[in-house]
């Protein structure tokens, strides 16, 4: 039963990924019918250069031929060359990927871990002292654009107090080795990670709190209490596991927002990852780069979602029986 469900989820994933491919082509070749017009200095190109570029970016032939070629190239990992640097887009992305993985990875884990804890505590004793402080705090964080938070950190903790560097990943003036190199890198990560974590903490803790409140109304909690279980055990063994389930899929959807947040956070701190690359691609109207970045982030979010779905099928027996 479970295997069949997992298989079904995987098929869903393949369908979604195929839709991403078609949608990408639609956006970049149909909505934007003349991509070459965005090529820098396109009006000064000679006819020969023009033909060469059209051929290089696979823009010749009918839309259908273009589509087949586009799918073929994409599946072979060929995303073309950047309009800006003329390097292959894939190498541009691979160069910056580790930085972003580090930033988004740490922030996602921190946001989920801290946000869920806050939500559980606030929901368990609604109207209590913790809830009265944490919920307005979560609301305020939810309403704050993460880049504004980052700007405040940069201005006060970075520029004014000088506690942390204001940008980049390493100190270019110093050549650290060994342990001090790691410390230098960590110091550059503090503000971006704090920004991205706090920027999305609010929505996670609010979702978890609501989920807790819904669970607290269930009959099985009354039963657990009636059995004479200690309050702690009722919360840890009965309320929390059930309240976590609906949040898993919301957490997965939230991952898409964290990716969006990484774009602005990296921009604020000039942190050379995929987010800053997105910002630069906007500035340069670098379509091949933008297309690859968009495809890349869509695939990351879909994979993350499918992963959450599969985890959920193992965690929640109701899904296995119900479907």
């Amino acid at each position: 039963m479970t295997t069949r469900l997992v298989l079904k989820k995987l098929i869903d994933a393949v369908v979604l990924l195929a839709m991403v491919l078609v949608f990408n082509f639609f956006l970049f070749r149909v909505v934007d019918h003349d991509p070459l017009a965005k090529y820098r200095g396109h009006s000064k190109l000679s006819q020969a250069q023009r033909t060469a570029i059209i051929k290089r970016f696979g823009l010749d032939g009918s839309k259908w031929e273009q589509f087949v070629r586009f799918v073929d190239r994409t599946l072979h990992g060929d995303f073309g060359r950047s309009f800006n640097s003329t390097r292959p887009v894939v190498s541009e992305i691979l160069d910056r990927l580790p930085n972003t993985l580090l930033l988004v990875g740490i922030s996602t884990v921190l946001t989920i871990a801290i946000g869920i804890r806050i939500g559980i505590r606030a929901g368990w004793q609604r109207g209590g002292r913790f809830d009265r402080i944490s919920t307005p705090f979560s609301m305020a964080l939810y309403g704050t654009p993460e880049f504004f938070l980052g700007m405040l950190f940069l201005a006060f903790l970075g520029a004014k107090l000088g506690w942390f560097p204001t940008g980049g990943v390493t100190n270019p003036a110093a050549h650290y080795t060994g342990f001090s190199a790691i410390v230098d890198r960590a110091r550059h990560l503090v503000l971006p990670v704090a920004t991205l974590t706090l920027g999305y903490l609010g929505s996670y803790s609010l979702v978890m709190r609501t989920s807790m409140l819904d669970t607290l109304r269930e009959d099985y909690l009354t039963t657990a209490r009636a059995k004479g279980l200690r309050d702690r055990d009722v919360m840890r063994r009965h309320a929390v596991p059930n309240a976590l389930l609906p949040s898993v899929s919301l957490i997965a959807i939230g991952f898409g927002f964290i990716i969006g947040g990484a774009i602005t956070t990296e921009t604020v701190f000039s942190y050379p990852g995929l987010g800053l690359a997105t910002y630069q691609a906007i500035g340069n109207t670098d379509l091949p780069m933008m297309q690859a970045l968009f495809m890349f982030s869509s695939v990351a979010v879909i994979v993350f979602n499918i992963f959450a779905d599969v985890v959920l099928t193992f965690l929640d027996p109701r899904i296995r029986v119900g479907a």
Partner: protein
Amino acid sequence: MVGLALMTLFVAMALLAPVFANRSELQAAAGRNNPNLHAPNGKFWLGTDEIGRNVFALVMWGARVSLYIGLLATVVAVVIGSVLGLIAGYARGWVSRVMLAIDDFFLVLPFIPLAIVLALLLGRSPTIMALVIGGTFWAGGSRLIRAQVLSLRERGYVERATALGASSRHIIMRHVLPGVAPLIIANASLIVPGAILAESTLAFLGLGDRFSPSWGKVLEGAQASGALTLNAWWYYLPPGLCIIGIVLAFTLVGNALERIFDPRLGDR
């Protein structure tokens, strides 16, 4: 109540912007003779930006741009979401399945990258920005409405109308739509803050109109001009606090509406 008061304040700001500041103050030339990045004084209540423009004028007019884009985007998102949600909930068979697949797809696509791509390809005027945001923001609402329609369809009065031979169109307009309308309204008031945040993000990334700046665009200017390291707090604090305020205002009002329309939610 706090939400409603804040909301009134921001709407008043947007409506009264021309009274307090002339539109021409937004032009690049407006600050020619003013000191650049000057701290607040009697003439410039919120100081000036890096080309000498009056930050107070930027913030007042920013309310107008941010609200316009946020509200128009919400209307677009609500219309798309409601229509698709109604069809997906009411139709059966493959229509319903295809709608659900499209909905799933838009729900899972990372929103900001998609909006960036659309804005990059389509243009940057406030109206286009609103269409772009609205066009990518409807999937959650459509899902909610579909669920509500599914449950309404099983109710006695809809079954009775079907049995009497009423057309689908009649049933949707007369029986289903009134049932989902409160949900649509509550959902709309919760889309507004998301749309305003999205707009400020896109503007911050350089996808805004330079001469009708929203608050996000003002923040982009602050970031790019080095106001952060120069400690020019009057340039970046006001627009940032305005974004937080307006998002909270709409969220609080939205939550209150949701509670009014769905008493089962109780006092959260």
